[in-house]
């Protein structure tokens, strides 16, 4: 079972449908966590949402508790929450991209995806992760072709994955393929 933590976003249920079509998915608000279901789940997914990681200390706690014990996937804000917990700073980016479709490329040959795989992704973010990003086991694996902004991180040892873009958006035609592959790890 997948436990999807909703940060009161208006895109969470797009993600829930995408996940549920692969594996049964339970959704709850970030402030109404069902501890028993969370404990039983095999994967925790952190939803998109407004604001920035430090606005959600409860989610930070959950990440720190379950990292390495369960598979964790973060989308948009969820991506930022993961890298924030791994020590990255979250900053405003120059161009604010809400409802924007970008070319995204796999840039690292250690990625679970094939290097140079190029696809279209829908983006809804005004903040981004500051670089350089240094981590022992987490690597940046995808970038925006045009601006080089980091679009994905992977830690295949601890099974932690983050996507800055929205695989759930209709602007990401390969969204299901991407999620399926991550969930199969």
């Amino acid at each position, binding site marked *: 079972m997948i436990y999807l933590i909703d940060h*009161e*976003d*208006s*895109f*969470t*249920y*797009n993600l*829930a*449908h995408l996940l*549920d*079509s692969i594996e049964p998915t339970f959704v709850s608000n970030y402030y109404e966590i069902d501890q028993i279901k969370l404990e039983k789940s095999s994967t925790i997914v952190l939803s998109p*949402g*407004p*604001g*920035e990681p430090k606005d959600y200390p409860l989610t930070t706690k959950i990440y720190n508790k379950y990292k390495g014990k369960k598979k964790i996937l973060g989308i948009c*804000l969820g991506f930022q929450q993961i890298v924030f917990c791994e020590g990255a700073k979250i900053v*405003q980016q120059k161009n*604010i991209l*809400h*409802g*924007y*479709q970008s070319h995204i490329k796999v840039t690292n040959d250690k990625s679970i995806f094939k290097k140079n795989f190029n696809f279209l992704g*829908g983006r*809804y*973010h*005004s*903040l981004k992760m500051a670089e350089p990003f240094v981590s022992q086991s987490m690597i940046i694996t995808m970038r925006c072709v045009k601006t080089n902004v980091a679009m994905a991180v992977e830690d295949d040892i601890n099974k932690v994955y983050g996507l800055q873009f*929205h695989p*759930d*958006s*209709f*602007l990401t035609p390969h969204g299901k393929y991407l999620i399926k592959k991550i969930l199969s790890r």
Partner: protein
Amino acid sequence: MLNNKEYLNKLYQSDKPLIIYKTDKGYDIYTDFSRRIIINKKNLKYFLNIQTKSKKSKIEELNCYVGFFGYKLLCENIGIKFPKQRSKNFHSGVFYKPQTKISIGKKIIIKSIKPDFRNISINTKKYLQLNKKFNLNLSLKQYSKIFNDFSKNIKQGKTYQIKIAQTYSKKGNINSIDLFWKLMKMNESPESFLIREKDYNIVSCSPETLILKKDKTIRTKPIAGTLRKTKQLNKNKALTFFRRNEKETKEHNMIVDMERNDLSKICKTGSVKIDKLKKVEEYRDLFHYVTTIKGVIKNKMSNHDIISSLMPGGSVIGCPKISTIQLLNRKEKFDRNIYTGSFGIIHSNGDMRFNIMIRTLLNFKNDIELSVASGVILGSTAKKEYNENYIKAKSLLDLFN
């Protein structure tokens, strides 16, 4: 006895409460109301899940309730608390049970369970318009300040898009029937309606369908993108404009994903699909950019669940819904009243049709008011959005010239 046409004319000239609702084929008129229910947050769920299901009439089409939910009621229904706002204390929502339905299409068809329904007397009420000009509640300067504050909120990631509402108002009374048919001649829109009541009137040329539910299938048709008509523009050129315009495209994409989300909450996994992506619809003063999304409702979902997921409609608030409404509540000093609420019909078999109350004029007591909104999107300017609001209000304001 009066023939159908004579009856209809007399009905118009009476002061009997009635509702007119635009349909695919023409117009439906509902009257001879046996019940009027004021909807508030306490009885909303009971009304939707129990009361509307009663099948008392032998005529199937009369087993329905017609009416509206105001904006505040819909927000409170999803757990949002409101600060103190200036308010006219208008009804939070009202629904009516009709005993007579008149369908106007190629022919006039009347169905009624009221034996003496043709018995009506003519009203001699005088309509009075006190001030000539409408007042606008926000000046460009005030609007710009809110616009700039919200722009900051967007940069901080607190909202992705936010719509500022403005209200035009003046003192007076309207003859809503005359006004409605005048409006339909000029700007017939798919979700137009009229409510004539003893204590208030609503006249609307809403173009936006929020819920179209038949059996287990539900559709929504969000509008995002507005273009003012000029002589050089036609539908194809408008489409090219929208496709090439980054701001309109982004705004539209966001609303499509948001409405997909709201449907996904109540629909079977995998059933939510985009039916018609990014079409242009043509109106008297403007073009709109529209998408249709559909889904199949999950077995256990009630009509209250459906209303809670889709209302208030996202395209008139911004995104994400909850945090954006909270930001709006801090800046909007006036109650939105009926504006961005929903008007529609609920049948006893569970089928529903609802619009979003935009391009909608309310006459309550001696006040006439009309609100419009447009989005703060980075890359747009306060002045441009302020003017876009005027274009949206124009066809209704023109009625008073």
